[in-house]
Every structure is written in structure tokens, then in C-alpha cells.
């Protein structure tokens, strides 16, 4: 809709054309303005409610706080519901899983992109075909397996099943295909071995795609709810998001403590949003690298 580049039709007066443009522009900004409010408002409510007392949230769940209090944060950071531990569980699991997933995918992607070997195309095609299979299919057997080897309620049960990502493999491979072979051959001439070529040349060149996959994978593990709910529901290894909905009044046992829940939600969102503010373009281009293959 390249309005500006359109030649002004000769039969239209300049004035009328301008009026139309202003109206269109007004409509466009209104739409975007409304969307801005809709996008931000739930986040604002989360922050506002985290500074209200529980009594106030009940009466005023979506407005400005009448009386600002930090009691919710005190309670989740030090009080009976110590969410800080769960927060660190989330950080630990997401970080380790991401490092391993990126490493394994990059290593395999390098081989698939830059080597010829027997079975390459077959293995790659099989890997792609499995992406149609919903991962949830593996839940019952994996549950039995992890129960048997005593891995339930551990960190490793949250990390190990998530470190292979066919999606990551594919995404990184697509990028590595664009690395010129001459570069690798030159390194080879200079006596670099396979590992050095991977580690010193291919990986540094692939930083953009590795960064993109890092973001996507980290977010997906950070958001991970169903898996830890089933496998790691005991609170000393449980990630933050699994604990959040369970914060209830210890007396009645079923009234949610909204103040703590909102403060905990802020805790779960804050690190991501802070990183997003600094690397927003990286976040958005990760979507593109991940979803759109050109």
C-alpha cells in the first residue's frame, strides 16, 4: 500500500487527496494505538496488581493501586512461598538446556550442511518426518522410564529430554549451507582439523542463527509447563511457572493469593522483558529465521 508513491490522480484536487490521506492515516494510527493499549494493558495490570494488597486486588483487579505495597514481593522472595528458589530452577534448567541444545544442533547441522556421507539424506529426511509426530506421544513411556531410573523431580528430567531439537538442527543447517566451501577448504589447507573448522570458523560465522535459536529455545523451556508439571512437581526443583498457579492460602487451601501470584508473574516475565528491550530486533528476527525459510 505504497500510498506516497502513488501518483496523484489528475482528476482529484490536491486538497481532496490530502484529506483522504489524513483520514487514512488517522484510521491507521487509531488501529495501532488501540493495539498498543491492548498489547500492553495485561502487562500493566500484572505489575499494578503485584503492588496491591490481596484485599485490594479482589475489589480492584484492573485499576491503579490505591495504596502501594511491596508485601507481595516480600512474601514471595522471603516469606513462606519462597519463589526465588523456583526462579533459579527455571534459570538453571532453561540455561543448561539451551546451551546443550544449541551445541548438539550446531554440531549435527555442520555435518548435514557441509559433509557428504553415506546415509546423510536418509537420516535427514527421517528427522524431518518425525516433526509431524506430537512430542506428547512420548510422555507415557518417558514417565515410566524416568520413574524407573529415579529421575522424577530432578533437574536432569527437565533438561535431558529437551536438548535435541530437530527444528534447531534444521534452522542452523539452513544457515550453514550459505557458508562458502572455499572458506572451509582454505582452513583445511592451512592444516585445521575438522573440529577446529567447526569451532573456529563455522560457529563464529553462524552467530546470528545460533542467537536466534538460543532465544527461541530458551523461551520455550522457560515457558515449559506441562512437562515439569508431570515430571518435576516437587517444589525444590520445580520451575517458577508450575508453582505460580498453585499459590493458595495455606489456611483455606483453595483461595488463590493473587498478590503473590502477580508478583511471581512479574518475576517470571521481568528477565525476558529486560532482555527483549535490549535485543528486540534479535527476538523478532529469530521468529523470521525460525519460521520463514527463503
Amino acid at each position, binding site marked *: 500500500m505504497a500510498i506516497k508513491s502513488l501518483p496523484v490522480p489528475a482528476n482529484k484536487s490536491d486538497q481532496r487527496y490530502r484529506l483522504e490521506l489524513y483520514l487514512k492515516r488517522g484510521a491507521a494510527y487509531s488501529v495501532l494505538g488501540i493495539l498498543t493499549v491492548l498489547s500492553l494493558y495485561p502487562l500493566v495490570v500484572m505489575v499494578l496488581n503485584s503492588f496491591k494488597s490481596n484485599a485490594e486486588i479482589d475489589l480492584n483487579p*484492573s485499576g491503579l493501586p490505591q495504596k502501594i505495597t511491596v508485601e507481595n514481593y516480600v512474601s514471595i522472595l522471603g516469606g513462606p512461598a519462597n519463589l526465588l528458589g523456583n526462579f533459579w530452577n527455571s534459570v538453571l534448567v532453561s540455561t543448561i538446556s539451551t546451551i546443550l541444545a544449541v551445541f548438539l544442533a550446531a554440531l549435527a547441522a555442520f555435518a548435514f550442511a557441509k559433509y557428504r556421507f553415506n546415509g546423510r539424506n536418509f537420516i535427514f529426511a527421517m528427522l524431518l518426518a*518425525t516433526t509431524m509426530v506430537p512430542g506428547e506421544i512420548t510422555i507415557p513411556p518417558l514417565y515410566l522410564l524416568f520413574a524407573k531410573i529415579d529421575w522424577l523431580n530432578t533437574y536432569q528430567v527437565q533438561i535431558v529430554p529437551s536438548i535435541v531439537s530437530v527444528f534447531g538442527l534444521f534452522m542452523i543447517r539452513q544457515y550453514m549451507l550459505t557458508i562458502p566451501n572455499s572458506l572451509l577448504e582454505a582452513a583445511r589447507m592451512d592444516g585445521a582439523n575438522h573440529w577446529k573448522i567447526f569451532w573456529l570458523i563455522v560457529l563464529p560465522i553462524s552467530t546470528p542463527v545460533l542467537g536466534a535459536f538460543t532465544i527461541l529455545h530458551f523461551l520455550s523451556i522457560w515457558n515449559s509447563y506441562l512437562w515439569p508439571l508431570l515430571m518435576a512437581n516437587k517444589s525444590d526443583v520445580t520451575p517458577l511457572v508450575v508453582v505460580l498457579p498453585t499459590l493458595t492460602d495455606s489456611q483455606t487451601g483453595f483461595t488463590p493469593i493473587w498478590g503473590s501470584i502477580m508478583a511471581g508473574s512479574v518475576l*517470571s516475565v521481568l528477565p525476558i522483558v529486560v532482555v527483549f528491550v535490549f535485543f528486540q530486533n534479535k527476538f523478532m528476527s529469530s521468529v523470521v529465521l525460525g519460521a520463514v525459510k527463503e
Partner: protein
Amino acid sequence: MANRLSKSLKEAAILPASVAGGEEVDGSTGSGITTYPKRNAHWGDVLAPYIFIAPFLIFFVIMFVVPSIYSFGLSFFRYKGYGEGRFIGLDNYIAILSYHVFWTELGNTIFYWLAHLLPLMIGAFLLAILIRSKLIKGQAFFKPIIFLPNIITIVAAALVYQSLFSTRYGVINTLSGIQIPWLENDDLTKWVVVILLIWRNLGWWMVVYLAGLSSINPELEEAATVDGASAMQRLYYIIIPLMRNIFLLAFVIDAIGSFRLFVEPNVLTSRAGSSLGTPEVSPLLNLLIGNLNNGSFGQASAVGWILFVIVIIVAAIQFRIFRENGVEVNE
């Protein structure tokens, strides 16, 4: 969307590529660091690629291939998690298909999918066009803000929506002045889930469509403009046909994600003390989890495979629809 769900959303991104071209899969580009293996290649050169893919493949086989096969076998057994399993043929499948909750939850899943699909996809596409148009400035401002909901932790977002839609004092009811029992009525609750899905994913697909739009050669549009095509004509005859593969990708990924929906409806409707919502608003995955919690591992596996079949059918239908439309466009 759940951990693995969102992961597979993205995993599914590869589908159309592999279907619609698969250019390098058959090795026509085939270039190596050099052309390994050579006849007199050093054994290290021959082994190197296998060593590079080994860690990935080993974990993939242990964590995905073997459990998938095992799960398929398990779906024909009655197994409580201990003792001997008993082969019962198709009984698990029959039990599930004749269980009314299965149909309720399948219906819910399809509702969640279809109800958000068009508003989300059309909205995101129009938004991408709008934000790219020369009509507005401030792309750098609007784009990240509309994208922002996508990085909000899903559980946190669902919990906040409980506040927004609370009956007596929630902002929606306060603004409208009507006390609508959003989260107390099952039909309304489902719509809240749909709103949450659209809210959280609008920016994601907008960014995808923006990338698609910017891959269109601007000369095509200019040429059409010179030939007197209106904005709508350019949209309909140039942009949309050229974006067909991206639409297909978006629709398939979104469908697969929708059938694996778990977090949004369950957290949104979580009544304290239970992590699963009531069957009236639950998605299909709840049946798998419910069976697992009851120790019915065979039935849980069977639900998983039914889910798989549904996903395949839905994806196949979409491929067909898009292909047919593609033929029309080319004519």
C-alpha cells in the same frame, strides 16, 4: 503454549520447506568441506561427520524414537505402571472413542483452533501490511510492542487474564457495565481462551508476515501500480498469491500447535488445587494427562496416537486446500 508445544510449533516450520521443495535434501548441492569421502580418504575424514551427528542422534533416539515406538506398543496394552501389562488389542482405542469426554475435549480443541484461526491470521496479515505501509511512521515503535505479548510467560499471561475477566470487578465488566460471568460460564470461558490465544500470537505472525512481505520483489508491485492496479488489486493478485507458501506454513504450524494446546485453557480455568481444568473447557491433551495421572499408561498412549492421526489429517487437508487454491491462482 506448552513447552513442547511451542517448540514444535517452531519445529513444524520446516514442513512446508521439506514438502515444497526440499531442494538440498537430495544432495544436489552436495558440497563438502572437500568431497568426502574420497577413495583414499583418511579414516578420520570419513568418520568426522558421523561423530558430529552422533550426540544429537543418540539423544534423539533415546528421548524420541524409542519412546514413540514404545508408546505405540503400549497403546495396545493395559498397563498400570507396575507388574505385567496385558495385551488388549484395540480396547484402549475403543474405550477412548466411546468415552464422551473425548468428544467434548476434541470439540473444544477444534473450537479453540477454528475460533482463533481467521481473526489471528487475517489480523496479523493486515497488521503487517499496515505497519509496512508508508501511511504510518514509527514501525520501530509499534512492531516490538505488538510483539511483546508473545514473550510474556504463558502461565503469567493466563493468570492475568483471570483478573481482567473476573466477573465483579474485572476491567472488561467494569468498562462495559455489565456483569458478564466470563470465567464462570463454559461457553464464555472458551472465548476468553480464544482472546488470549489471539493476544499472545498476533505479534508473532505479524513478524512472520512482515518478513514474507519484504521478500516480495518491490518491482512487481511498482509495475502493477504503473499499470493502474489499485491497492486492493495488488493485494489480491500479487501479494496474496506470492505469500501462499507462508500462509500454508502459518496455518499448518498454528493447527499443529492448536491440537497440542494445554497451558492456556488449563491455567485460565484453574480452580485452585487442581492443575487441570474441567472437561467442559479442556483440550484433548487433558485426556492424555488424566489417564497418565490415573496410571492408565496404555490409554494415555492411545490418546497420543489418536492425536497424531488427527494432526496428520488436519495438515493434509490444509495442504490440499492450499494446493487447490494455488492452481486457481496460476490459471
